């Protein structure tokens, strides 16, 4: 029920965006999300965008998960 997927915004017309969901293009309501621009990724649930995915935070999180950041710190001179 609460399943949602990240999708790229490829067009915006008023309160409705067109998103690309792994190749499938579908309209999504922006009623809850005002600061969206083309190229953003949004979390889509039952035809509504709930949240904008922050690319920078996602990249940081990936780096921490993969251990890259830890290794980088360990490699630095004390």
């Amino acid at each position, binding site marked *: 029920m*609460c399943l949602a997927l990240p999708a790229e915004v490829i067009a915006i017309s008023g309160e409705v965006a067109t998103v690309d969901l792994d190749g499938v293009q579908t309209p999504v309501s922006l009623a*809850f999300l005002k600061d969206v621009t083309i190229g953003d990724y949004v979390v889509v649930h039952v035809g509504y965008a709930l949240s904008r995915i922050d690319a920078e935070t996602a990249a940081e999180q990936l780096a921490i998960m993969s251990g890259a950041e830890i290794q980088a710190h360990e490699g630095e001179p004390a």
Partner: protein
Amino acid sequence: MRYVDEFRDPKTAKAIAARIHRDVDPNRDYAFMEFCGGHTHALCRFGLEDLLPDNISMIHGPGCPVCVLPVGRLDLAIELALSRPEVTLLTYGDMMRVPGGNGASLLSAKARGGDIRMIYSTTQAVDLARDNPDREIVLFAIGFETTTPPTAAAVKAARAAGLNNFTVLCNHVLTPAAIDAIMTTGSEQTRARLDGFIGPGHVSTIIGAEAYQGAVDKWGKPIVIAGFEPNDLLNAVHRLVNQVNRGGAQVENAFARAVRPGGNAVAQALCEEVFSLRDSFEWRGLGTIPASALRLSDGYQEFDAEQRFALTYTSKPDHKACACAEILRGEKSPVDCKVFARACTPEHPIGSCMVSPEGACAAYYLYGRYRDIKRTNEPAAA
């Protein structure tokens, strides 16, 4: 898919699992509840529990709205669709096959002539009401905070369009209330061994990370909000282990790429306008919980299907053989239920947890029912 594939990288999964193995205290046990049914499915689908040390157990929580809807609420919808020929009842697909009283479901009611239709989005509900002025369009609305704003948006749109043939049979429920219920009505044993929660990621995009501060303060258990990819979940378990080891009880947002501290203010304001708290609401498994669900607010009473069709809720018992109630409270695992994968299967479900794509029983059936069978490479004896 971007933001999906990167968080499924097997090398990273192994690296996080290795960190969990490194950091667990071998002299104690850990038990964490993943609140959300979507998390339960990800755990099972990706076999994540097999990557965890033996002294970490995952307890599956009640975060599956289809599962926690009691029989009596489903029967209200079935009876409405069958007794009122002017009604078209709309529902999300997961609800269709859930067994209500006497084994009836929305699907069987549809076969008996009820006008019951599946929708993907509440925008379709408003369109149907506009296009069919001679029909009473009723949205059978269920779901946690993720699914509530789309219902509110439909009600607002119906009012803006001047539609008087659209109502909502509202069953929206609240996550923090369910966490409280686990900590108050759950068994002493479950509560005592529970070390922390994995917070639901998509619910949190709406309510925000700060919404869990009350629960953390009250119960002294850490909550780590996680996304739905395997590495998100492993990372959340690692963070929980670290918090428990240092005696911490904090809210950590491990899904910060999508969850803001305050959540989605626009969606919250809309829900506040359209809905009010019910005094109490019955949940399957958790019993009647005060202030745990929503109704249409005083300003939107004309959209309340319970008012328009004078519906009265009656509590009804679950199937006697079904252990959904105990499973939803985290007291039993699906394999502890005597009808699991025998009398109760996704094709012929007895309980809601076997039907819903987020139910724990469905997850075990789909991904885990052969897990404990010992394999052997020896050829069978001739």
